[in-house]
C-alpha cells in the first residue's frame, strides 16, 4: 500500500528522472540525491527522505525512455519507490528489474496525486476511488531475475555453476 506522491505524463525521459549533468555520480548509494533534480520541490523531499518506502510514482506511457543510464533506476530504488506506469521503455524496465526497483505495468490506471494504491498480484486497487485496474505480468524471463533478488545474485549463482561450485 502506498500513496501517489508524484503524478507524471507520457514519455518521461531519463534526462528528467536523472539529468545528464549528474552522470559522474554513479554509486547507487549516492544517486537518489539527484532524482528528478529539475523538479525542485519533489527532489527536496526525496533528499529529506520524506517519502515512506513503497510510495508510488505514477506515470503514463513510455516511462524511462532515452538513455541506458542505470542511475535513473538506482535513484528511485534508493528511496524504495514503486513505479506504476501505463508502460515502460525497454532499457529502463530491464535496469529496474536488474536492480530490484519495483515496476508495475498498468495500462488503464487512473489515479491522482494523494490517492492510496494497493498493488496485488494482478491488479492495482485505487483505495481512494475504489476502482481496480488490471496489470500486465512480467515475462517469465524477467520474473526469474526479480525472484532471484536482482541480476547480481542471479549472475553470482551462474558464476558458481561456471566454476562448478556453489558460489
Amino acid at each position, binding site marked *: 500500500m502506498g500513496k501517489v506522491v508524484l503524478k507524471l505524463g507520457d*514519455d518521461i*525521459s531519463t*534526462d*528528467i528522472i536523472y*539529468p*545528464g*549533468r549528474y*552522470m*559522474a*555520480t*554513479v*554509486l547507487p548509494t549516492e544517486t537518489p540525491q539527484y532524482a528528478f533534480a*529539475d523538479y525542485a520541490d519533489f527532489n527536496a523531499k526525496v533528499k529529506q527522505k520524506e517519502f515512506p518506502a513503497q510510495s508510488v510514482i505514477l506515470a503514463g*506511457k*513510455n516511462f524511462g*525512455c*532515452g*538513455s*541506458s*543510464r*542505470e*542511475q535513473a*533506476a538506482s535513484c528511485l530504488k534508493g528511496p524504495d519507490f514503486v513505479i506504476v506506469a501505463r*508502460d515502460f*521503455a*525497454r*532499457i529502463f524496465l*530491464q*535496469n529496474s528489474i*536488474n*536492480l530490484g526497483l519495483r515496476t508495475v505495468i498498468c495500462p488503464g490506471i487512473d489515479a491522482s496525486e494523494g490517492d492510496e494504491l494497493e498493488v496485488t498480484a494482478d491488479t492495482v486497487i485505487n483505495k481512494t476511488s475504489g476502482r481496480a485496474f488490471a496489470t500486465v505480468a512480467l*515475462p*517469465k*524471463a*524477467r520474473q*526469474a*531475475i526479480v525472484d532471484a533478488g*536482482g*541480476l*547480481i545474485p*542471479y*549472475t*553470482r549463482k*551462474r*558464476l*558458481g555453476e*561456471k*566454476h562448478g561450485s556453489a*558460489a
Partner: protein
Amino acid sequence: MAMTMVEKILAKATGQSSVKAGDVLEPKVDLAMSHENAALVLNQFKEIYAGTGHEATVWDPSKIAIIFDHRVPAESSKTATNQKKVRDFVAKQGIAKFHDIRGDQGGICHQILPENGYVRPGCVVVGTDSHTTSHGALGAFSFGIGATEMASVWTLGTVLNVEVPGSIKVVVHGELSQYVLPKDLILYLIGRISAEGANFKVIEFHGPVIRSMSTSGRLVLCNMSVEAGATGGVVPPDGETVRYLREEAGVKDALDIFGPDEDAVYDQVVEIDASSLEPQIACPHTVDNVKPIGEVAGLKIDQVVIGSCTNGRLDDIAVVAEMLSGKKVASGTRMLVFPASSRIYLEALEKGYVAEIMKAGAVMMNSGCGPCLGVHQGALADGDVALTTTNRNFKGRMGNPNSGVYLCSPAVAAASAVTGVITDPRKGAK
C-alpha cells in the same frame, strides 16, 4: 522456419538451427562496449564476485571495448577519477580495444566501433549506451543495456534471459532529393510510428533507398531507431557493407553476408516513399514531435550544433563546409562543430572543411559527445533555442530545462546557421 535478421543472428549466437520471436535465449556476446559508465560497470562487476572466493576477471578481454567520449576531456575531478579507475582496470585486465582521450584515435563510441572494424555482420553487440542500436547498420544485432547487465556480460560472456524481439520491416522506395538526408528519413519514421512505436522490437530497413545509402547514412537510421523505442535497428549487409569494412575499417578476414529469409514473419510493414520527403524537424520536447520544415521555418535560433553519434561523420561535415563556404554564421547565432572521431577530424582538416567552417565563424570542438547530453561544453541559456544534428530533444537534454532543442539534418543546420533562423536548405541551393 523462415527467420528475420535478428532471429538469424540469435540462432547463430545460441548454436540453434532456428529461433523465433518470443523465445528466451542466452546469446553469446561478440562485443561488449562501455564508455565512462564502465566505472559503474566495474563497481557492479566487483559486487558480483564479492564473497565468491574467485578473482574478478572478465570473460574475454578481446571482446570488451571501452571508449571515453561522454565527458572528454574530463569536466570535473569526479569524472577524471572515474576515468582513472577504468584506465587502471583496462590495463590490469588487458583490454586492448580501449580508446582513451587522444587526438589520434579518440571519439564517440558509436563511431569508434565501426571505423575500427570492431563490428561485423551477424555479430551480437551490447553496449551500456542506448544508441548502441547504431551498429545494426553493419548487419549486427546491437542493443543497449544497463551497467549491471554489462557486469553480468563481463562475468559470463552471454546476455541472460534475452527475449527474441519481433521485427518491423521498413521499406523505403524512391529516391531522396537533394538536401534531404537519412536524418530526415528517420525523423519522419519516428514521427509516423511514435516514440514508442517500436518498443521491444527491431526495425529492419529495406528498399532501394537503403541499398544505395552509404554506411554513414545507415548508421544514422539505426542510431535513431531507439528514439522509436526499438531494441535495435538493422540493415541486411550487402556490397556497401563489405566496401566499408574493407576500405574504411581495414577488415581483412572473411565476412558473413546474409539477409533475412524471404518469407520471414514481421509484426508490421511500413512503406515510405522517399521521393516526396521534405526536410524534417523534431520540435521540443519529444523526438516524435516531428514537423516538415515549412511549419517551423523562420524560428530564431541561438545555437547550432553539428556533431554526435548521429551526424558528426565526414559526409555530414562535408555538407556543412559546402553550405558555409564563403558565408558567415549569422551574428547572434553561435555554431559549434564536433567531429564524431579524431580520424574524421583529421580527414576534415585534410580536405579543407575545417578551414571553411572556421572562416564562417563556427567553433571547432574536440571529438566526443560534447553538448549532446548537456554535461559540459555548449550549455544553453534560459530561453535559448538550439538547432542540432544530435538525436534527442528531451526537456533539459542540453543541460537546461528552460531551453528548447530542435533536431534536424546537417544541411538544415548549416543553412539555418547562415540566416539565424530555421531555414530550408533547398531554398537558394546551387
